[in-house]
């Protein structure tokens, strides 16, 4: 029996050992390759070096954004919150009372900690004072930034804990687990682990001079004993002076001098207006930040998955696994505008030092600075247009001659302007006011002192591409080509202005001139058949275009707007662009017959942007060839698209646009001020086609309070060197002034000044004067 028992023991032991051998075999064969790779990877230490971010240049190579070195003052989060004092006081108490500590009750311990705490609080306060003194920042400002940091981080923390908990609970529910109260407490505890921002240092003073940086760095080593008998703590605990570098926007703030001799008489002057304009191009350029979020890493990974070009580029300079464009903490990351959308181009390739820990071999790959990006913008034109839209200049402030029905004289108006090169679609200038400047901390500061979320000023919104506007009368130029194309009318189509479209309904579908003055538009030769299209455009007759809208009807009208770009997303490196919409929400773009009538003159369920307007007019100027607007000079060009518009009605519409500006009674021929009547456009040697739009706009309402109401003022112009209608348009200009009222009186003079800026910057060379100067011919 004993031997049988021994046999049992032997079998049991051998069984156990065989199990061990089996598992060892499994590991060493099935999992060998993967495990070996991981184990070997630990022999390699990789040190990443930062790459300089690429520059953003204008079309002539002027620097709009670039990196430069710079020190910042950063402080650990537990100092910012004051948790440091508590921890230090606790440490001091334990050190000084180490013999009795184990016997003390919790309350006694807390009392001891409280005894030492004030001294550390005072030390911390002294630390803030030192930072304030050395950097020259007011102490209040330092305190304010600390508070803001705590607010931001604790808000983010609460959010992240919440999200973590939700994700974990959802995961467990998916696995079929029951969420008991106990488990939830457990999960909440796990989700409550600190986020990176709570362990990282935060920048308190974003940019200090080199001298200040050196001074602070020198002081970092100094230590002092706050409580006798305890270890000395740094005079500036938790403070670091990293060389974060700085992103500078040299053209963001520039001195501009604008001639005032061509302004409307009431604000005309022989002295040029010179001022510093700030925030030039900031809507387009955006800004960067120095805080790394998990989303950045995820976005990069996602781009590598989806963007084959990027993945190829990454593989070319490193490998799929070693992405030299990877993010590490402390990186400068594009946060908005082109800085964000061109992130992958601008950020460049990190240098990397790879050290084999076992052999000590090192290999070094130098960093490659990010690629420069050239924009189609002309920085000088951008700055000048920016100045023109500055309320201080006078054009974007309600003036008596504006005849604004809703806003008192002197009110600042918010406006946007786009200038396109007709032949290429290149955006030469895109301005929206008010705007913001990128402050030293890298974030947006509104200009002037408005709030970033001010509902009227909305300084963060780039009105030129982000804000939806009713197109209004400016679309009248496209209706005849569309109607002729569909065979609804011929180019000699005439329509009588009856004041109101429906004979028995004098209060609806009215012409503006009838509504305002009780008049009707008259053909020049007083013929009975009614107005020709160019006469209708010249006088902006609503009845003519209501009629075309009715003829086009709800079936064809969406196609008309599609042809001029409404609803087509822009292929531009800008976020939040508005593609334009047609049709009431929820109708899938289907229209009602009455809506089609309104859409004939640009009202009703449709919205677009100034960029749409400029692009559509440029399309008209090209004879019906659509070219995508461009912002990146070196980006591949999209193929031009030929619209199926016959050329004859296009020419008739252009003729109408010519007459709007150049006929004595065109809606944009002249303005009447208290000093008399004067032409709106007055640049010698430049031919101007244009269209006014006084677009009824929905009131701006917040919390039931009407903040702004009335009409948006549009002016869209085509301009080119020459004296007569035979000239070729080379530039398209679109201007909108929010709630500005009359298109001609408010936005017209701005468009005129933009023409002058085009000339002043050399982008438009006026034709040499004719023998008899024609510019005076328009004078009253």
């Amino acid at each position, binding site marked *: *029996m*004993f*031997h049988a*028992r*021994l046999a*049992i*023991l*032997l079998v049991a*032991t*051998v069984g*156990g*050992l065989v*199990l*061990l*051998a089996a*598992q*060892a*075999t499994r*590991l*060493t*064969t099935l*999992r*060998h390759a*993967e*495990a*070996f790779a*991981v*184990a*070997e990877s*630990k*022999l390699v230490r990789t040190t990443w070096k930062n790459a300089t971010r690429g520059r953003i240049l204008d079309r002539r190579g002027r620097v709009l954004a670039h990196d430069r070195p710079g020190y910042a003052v950063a402080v650990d989060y537990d100092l910012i919150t004051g948790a440091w004092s508590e921890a230090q006081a606790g440490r001091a108490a334990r050190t000084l009372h180490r013999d009795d500590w184990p016997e003390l009750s919790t309350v006694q311990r807390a009392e001891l900690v409280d005894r030492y705490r004030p001294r550390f609080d005072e030390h911390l306060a002294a630390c803030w004072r030192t930072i304030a003194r050395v950097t020259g920042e007011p102490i209040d400002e330092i305190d304010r930034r600390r508070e803001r940091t705590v607010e931001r981080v604790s808000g983010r923390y609460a959010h992240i804990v919440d999200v973590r908990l939700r994700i974990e609970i959802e995961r467990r529910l998916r696995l079929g687990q029951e969420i008991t109260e106990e488990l939830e407490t457990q999960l909440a505890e796990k989700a409550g682990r600190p986020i990176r921002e709570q362990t990282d240092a935060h920048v308190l003073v974003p940019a200090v001079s080199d001298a200040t940086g050196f001074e602070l760095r020198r002081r970092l080593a100094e230590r002092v004993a706050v409580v006798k008998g305890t270890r000395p703590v740094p005079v500036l605990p938790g403070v670091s002076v990293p060389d974060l570098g700085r992103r500078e926007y040299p053209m963001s703030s520039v001195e501009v001098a604008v001639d005032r001799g061509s302004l409307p008489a009431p604000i005309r002057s022989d002295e040029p207006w010179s001022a510093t304009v700030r925030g030039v191009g900031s809507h387009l350029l955006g800004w960067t930040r120095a805080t790394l979020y998990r989303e950045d890493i995820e976005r990069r990974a996602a781009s590598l998955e989806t963007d084959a070009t990027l993945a190829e580029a990454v593989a070319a300079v490193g490998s799929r696994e070693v992405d030299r464009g990877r993010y590490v903490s402390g990186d400068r990351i594009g946060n908005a505008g082109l800085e964000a959308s061109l992130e992958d181009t601008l950020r460049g390739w990190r240098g990397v030092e790879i050290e084999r*820990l*076992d052999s000590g071999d090192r290999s070094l790959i130098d960093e490659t600075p990010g690629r420069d990006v050239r924009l189609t913008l002309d920085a000088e034109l951008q700055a000048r247009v920016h100045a023109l839209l500055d309320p201080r200049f006078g054009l974007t402030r309600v003036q008596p001659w504006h005849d604004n029905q809703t806003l008192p004289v002197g009110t600042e108006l918010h406006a946007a302007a786009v200038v396109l090169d007709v032949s290429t679609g290149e955006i030469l200038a895109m301005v929206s006011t008010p705007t913001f400047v990128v402050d030293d901390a890298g974030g947006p500061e509104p200009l002037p002192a408005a709030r970033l979320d001010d509902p009227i000023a909305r300084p963060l919104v780039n009105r030129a591409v982000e804000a939806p506007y009713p197109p209004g009368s400016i679309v009248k130029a496209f209706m005849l080509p569309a109607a002729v194309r569909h065979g609804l009318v011929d180019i000699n189509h005439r329509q009588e202005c009856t004041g109101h479209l429906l004979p028995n309904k004098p209060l609806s579908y009215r012409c503006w001139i009838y509504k305002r003055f009780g008049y009707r538009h008259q053909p020049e030769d007083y013929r009975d058949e009614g107005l020709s299209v160019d006469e209708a455009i010249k006088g902006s007759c609503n009845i003519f275009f209501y009629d075309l809208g009715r003829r086009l009807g709800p079936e064809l009208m969406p196609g008309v707007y599609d042809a001029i770009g409404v609803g087509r997303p822009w292929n531009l490196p800008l976020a939040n662009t508005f593609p334009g919409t047609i049709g009431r929400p929820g109708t899938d773009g289907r229209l009602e017959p009455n809506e089609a009538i309104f859409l004939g003159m640009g009202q009703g369920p449709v919205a677009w942007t100034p960029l749409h307007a400029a692009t559509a007019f440029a399309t008209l100027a090209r004879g019906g060839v659509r070219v995508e607007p461009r912002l990146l000079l070196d980006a591949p060009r999209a193929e031009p698209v030929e619209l199926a518009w016959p050329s004859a009605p296009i020419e008739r519409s252009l003729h109408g646009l010519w007459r709007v500006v150049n006929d004595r009674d065109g809606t944009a021929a002249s303005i009447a001020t208290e000093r008399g009547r004067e032409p709106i456009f007055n640049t010698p040697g430049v031919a101007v086609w244009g269209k006014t739009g006084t677009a009824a706009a929905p009131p701006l309402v917040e919390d039931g309070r009407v903040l702004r109401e009335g009409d948006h003022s549009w002016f869209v112009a085509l301009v080119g060197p020459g004296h007569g209608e035979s000239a070729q348009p080379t530039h398209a200009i679109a201007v909108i002034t929010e709630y500005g009222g009359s298109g001609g009186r408010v936005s017209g003079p701005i468009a005129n000044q933009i023409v002058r800026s085009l000339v002043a910057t050399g982008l438009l060379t006026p034709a040499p004067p004719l023998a008899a100067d024609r510019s005076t011919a328009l004078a009253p």
Partner: protein
Amino acid sequence: MSVLRSLIKDGGPIAFIIRGTHGGIGPWYGILNPSTPAWMTLGASLVLSLIGVVAIDTASGDGSGLGFLAFRQVLYVGVGVSAAAVAVVPHHRLIGRLALPAMIACVALLVFLLVPFVPDSLVTPRKGARAWIDLGVADFQPAELTKIAFVVVVAMYLRYSRAHRRFVGLVIPGLIAAVPAALITLQPDLGTASLFAPSLFAMLVAAGARLRHLSIIVIAAAAVLPASYLVMKPHQQARIRGLVEQIQGNDENADSINYQSFVAQRLVAAGGVWGTGEDKSRAIVAYNHLPEAHNDMVFAVITLRWGLIGGVVTVAAVGAWIAGALLTAAVSRDPFGRLVVVGLSGFIAAQTVINIGMTIGLLPIIGITLPFVSYGGSSMLASWLMTGLVVNVGIRRAEPPFRDSFEYGGGDD
């Protein structure tokens, strides 16, 4: 000469020590059995010790000569071998007489470790456990010697007993195991404490306890085991959860509670079938930061360096040790010797299975050494003493009168 002759003559002191009795038939050296299977344990011990020294050097040395820890391990092996040689000399019957006092001394030392006011200079807590007594030149771990004393005491108790054939008769052996196991658990050193049960079971099985009684105990323990999770310390619970997560293929805690286990398995797997060789394995161990690489996790270093081949050789060597010991028990006719050998085998087997099992991810991480291989003096001394005792039993032929031990006839268990 005459003094020497009087020392070695039959009935002299040396004969007494060797023979364990003043009587006996024939010359005292007649009882020696040079062809005992116990030599297998000696051979296995040497192979394992050698593997251990080289593996420790791989884990901690810099490749230029024998590293500091490996050198110390060589000294420990020397001490162990010497102790084993000494342990071979006196007849195990004499050793049995020392068992109870030795056990009492060991228990006293275990109690001493737990006394709160013993200064840290004498009992230095390591990784939170009060398990070592500082002897100046080296630290000494009483639990290791307790294992041997325990085996001898239980063997003494069971050798002529029939009580364990009844269920209540298992209580006393159980208590003998429970006292040291409880004290060691309090250190806390759950790993060493957990070895007493397998060893006791091995001895009870060999001594003829009814298998159904033992099965009832095993089943009851298995039923109670899940409840023990509730009274575990948080770090112990975390290790159990970690093992469950690993088995589920969840690696989200690979950097925290499962770190040690993940790194150990990675290194085992990295070795492949043939191993990575000396230089590479040194570098990989160093930069993968395997905790306790030279100690509890030494098996990972062995497979990393010599691959599956090295791992299997190690496991086989332990198998050879146990086979040698069990054969010794089979050949021996002395009930006390038999039980001692079986009890020691129980310790070696349990310790090996638990240590390697945790290294390759089959068991939760628990601090326990691989006998003969892991770094450490107390562990080495205890292991070699075990080898010495097995040889001690194996090298002696039982002298008449013989008496059948543990033969209770078939079918009654």
